[in-house]
């Protein structure tokens, strides 16, 4: 399989948020602003690339019946390491994302890609798959965060575009996340013909 195709597959054809509808909890929970969405996407991407790489390397050493616990241990270790790194070097981001970082462990996207892709393909392909799916997730979260931030507070990436007084608070809160996500999925399905 050609690497570019794997990458494109993750970004659009099998976009985890718009097409596979996986990882909805962090998608709805962390996208109150574009920056938050992007940070969450990048954090997930980092875990995904490494978990795909490690799992594709050790896949033949793992007996079938214990593969899920083994994958979970690998993923959980990566997430815990990421959490410590973020606490140490990007405390501001860590403070905003907080609880959602440890929750990456149980994110279906990561276990799903480990099962569906890394367990069947070589290390290089798996890295590209992690990169593609991770980018797809990051783009989706940034887009959703951007829309919610713009409609809710009149800002985009922290830069004020119009006064906050005209913002619709609804979009910063949970219902706005569902509404914006619903419309985004509809638009993507319609335009991308997937």
């Amino acid at each position, binding site marked *: 399989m050609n690497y570019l195709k794997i990458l494109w597959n993750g970004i659009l054809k099998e976009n985890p948020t718009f097409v596979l509808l996986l990882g909805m909890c962090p998608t709805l929970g962390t996208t*109150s602003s574009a920056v938050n969405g992007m940070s969450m996407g990048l954090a997930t991407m980092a875990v995904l690339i490494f978990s795909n790489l490690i799992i594709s390397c*050790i*896949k*033949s*050493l*793992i*007996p*079938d*019946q*214990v593969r899920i*616990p*083994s994958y979970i*241990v*690998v993923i*959980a*270790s990566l997430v*815990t*390491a990421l959490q*410590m*790194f973020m*606490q*140490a*070097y990007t*405390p501001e981001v860590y403070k905003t994302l907080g609880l959602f970082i440890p929750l990456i462990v149980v994110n279906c996207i990561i276990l799903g890609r480990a099962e569906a892709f890394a367990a069947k393909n070589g290390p290089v392909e798996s890295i590209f798959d992690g990169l593609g799916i991770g980018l797809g997730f990051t783009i989706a979260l940034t887009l959703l965060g951007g829309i919610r931030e713009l409609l*809710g*507070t009149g800002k985009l990436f922290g830069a004020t575009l119009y006064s*906050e007084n005209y*913002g619709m*608070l609804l979009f*910063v*809160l949970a219902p706005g996340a569902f509404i914006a996500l619903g419309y985004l999925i509809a638009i993507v399905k319609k335009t991308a013909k997937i």
Partner: protein
Amino acid sequence: MKKLPSTLPNMLCVLTLISVIAAGALAYVNKMTAGPIEENKARTLAEGINTVLSVSDAQVQQTTEVEDANGNPVILYATDKGMAVQAIDPNGFGGTLKVLVGFSDEGAIKGYTVLEHAETPGLGAKASFWFQKGEKGDIIGKNPGEKELTVSKDGGDVDAITASTITSRAFLRAVNVAFHAYAGASATDAQSGASAQQHAKAAPPQGEE
């Protein structure tokens, strides 16, 4: 390469091996990041204390942990420039509110900062600036020892955040708790026995809507 068959010894060995390697790697990362994490925490705390005391170089001399009337932890930071107190109120609109308040020697509020909250963005989240100097609910310079801080709806003289009375009440309760802890600490220092003793009693319970 063929997969290892799922026999008991195989599964045991693989799982143990993976767990041991993972634990080793995590111990290494933990050792590497423990230093910077501690530094971050210390820096955040120092910045908070400097903000609420409106100085730039306060040195913490003594840290005391006490409990308020409801068993919530209150931390007192005695510095060379005054006292900063961290207190919480568990009954904000979205959960626990954690504030850090600086007091002058007379017990007047010098400054505050909201360390943690889960209030509604655009409404209760305004607490971080609403009660600052010059804002609508200005509490800077007020002394909770002379008059307990309450919102005007409850007969007090602090303007609550528009549409966020519950947040405002929780915030003021936390500030009052901080003051009582501060007054209690001053009393044990035997500086102003009688008056501080009087304030050291528990904050009266207030009804929620």
